[in-house]
């Protein structure tokens, strides 16, 4: 199973095994990674699963879709590598992915 590393804003790391086909958000929530609330459960309705994708992984995680882009427009502390983790599907190619969590979601 692909491993994903979530780094909290305070530097604390959580390494989680993420099933292929689920989303980067789901893997975090199911392992209670603090900082990813995902209140809406992945319906792209709440923008509380914002992450920064490690620059090395940007190509593999793909582009923001248009709905996601609009939601992120209103999120706090948005950077070029911001994504909603509910919109990133886990695949074998993402084994080793590193994402960081914004301070505001703490």
């Amino acid at each position: 199973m692909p491993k994903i590393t979530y780094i909290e804003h305070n530097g604390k790391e959580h390494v989680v095994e993420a099933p292929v086909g689920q989303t980067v958000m789901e893997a975090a929530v199911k392992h209670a990674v603090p900082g990813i609330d995902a209140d809406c459960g992945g319906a792209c309705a709440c923008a509380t699963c914002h992450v920064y994708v490690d620059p090395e992984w940007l190509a593999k995680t793909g582009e923001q879709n248009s709905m996601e882009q609009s939601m992120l427009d209103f999120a706090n502390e948005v950077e070029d590598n911001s994504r909603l983790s509910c919109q990133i599907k886990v695949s074998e190619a993402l084994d080793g992915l590193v994402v960081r969590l914004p301070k505001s979601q703490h």
Partner: protein
Amino acid sequence: MSTGEIKRIIIIGAGQAGGETAQRLRQGGFDGEITLIGEEPAAPYQRPPLSKAYLKGDLDIDRLMLRPASVYVEEHIALLTKTRAVWIDRANRKVRIEGGRELPYDALILATGAKPRKLPLVGADLDGVHLFRTAADVDRVRERFVSGAKLIVIGAGYIGLEVAAVARQRGLDVTVVETAVRPLARVTSPEVAGFFLDEHARQGVRFVLGGQAALIKGSDRVTGVGLTDGAELPADLVIAGIGVTPDVAIAEQCGLTVSNGVVTDRQCRTSDPNIFAIGDCAARPMVHYGGRIARLESVHNAVEGAKIVAAVLTGGKEHAEEAPWFWSDQYDLKLQIAGLFQGYDQLVFRGVMADRAFAAFYYKGDKLIAVDAVNRPAEYLGAKMLIQTNRTLPPSVIEDMSRPMKELVASAR
């Protein structure tokens, strides 16, 4: 009640509100006993996908789970499934569960949810007639959700219309029967309801508006629905989505104040300071709406109740209430709703319905109180922020599509 005295917390109701509360109590550092009591066989799961992706078959039950069952063990949360709490002894702070066992508490949280209204009709207990609340309800429906089957949906609220949308996508023959003269009558404006009516009609859904089911026909299995005007509609499957009633039986038994839900203050505290109520079963003051007491049936409300109570019981940072939010997925339409539209006196559109991407802004006087945004996430989030921060924008400004929503929100006072 100081937080230091609380060693034992019982949560009655293991839906999203109850499950989130248990989790957030632990995250907030509470290290005493947590007992989570639920009537369903499963650990807490999300209900919204039941009428969407789960009905469609795109998600299995594991993906609906808030957390894997193992997390409750790891975090020492005693999850009692298939268990009904039957009695609360407030004087001695005890909850009795079915079978007679009594569990003591220092703080009690009612998250009992709501029960779907049953069709008050002859034949409502026939095979093939379904309510739509639990994963088990949907599992039974799914077996019969096959192309060509004749489905009658009774009730054109969000659940009814979401079910109708999935059914059409699965090739069922769908008729929706609704007593009101339009769909979504309780939850949105005639204009937005008209848009969804047209969309469903275009997708092949038939509507009987202003129609009233009189009886369900069939000997052992449902074969049709008879209407009060004498018409009869053939059916292989009937799904009732005619609303829910808050499950307040145990709150009433122990004498808490109940008025369309267990009434609480902003901290979700009931008329007994040791008992809290959250989620679909509870009614609390809406801080963005002049403190009016409302009972919301939504994920937002379930999660927010959990956040508020966990903060109170762990002495954490007070939760800042969000503007209420909701969503509904039908076909390729994502409807996102912020705020409460009741009492609006002006409706302003940004974008046009023909583009299948528009937002309806509801005003009361010059105050923006709600938005229904269809495929318009920026308008949804922008309006939500405005309502949350008690700001507004003049209707003439919000209509101006030449300026992006983000810019408008930044300019709002």
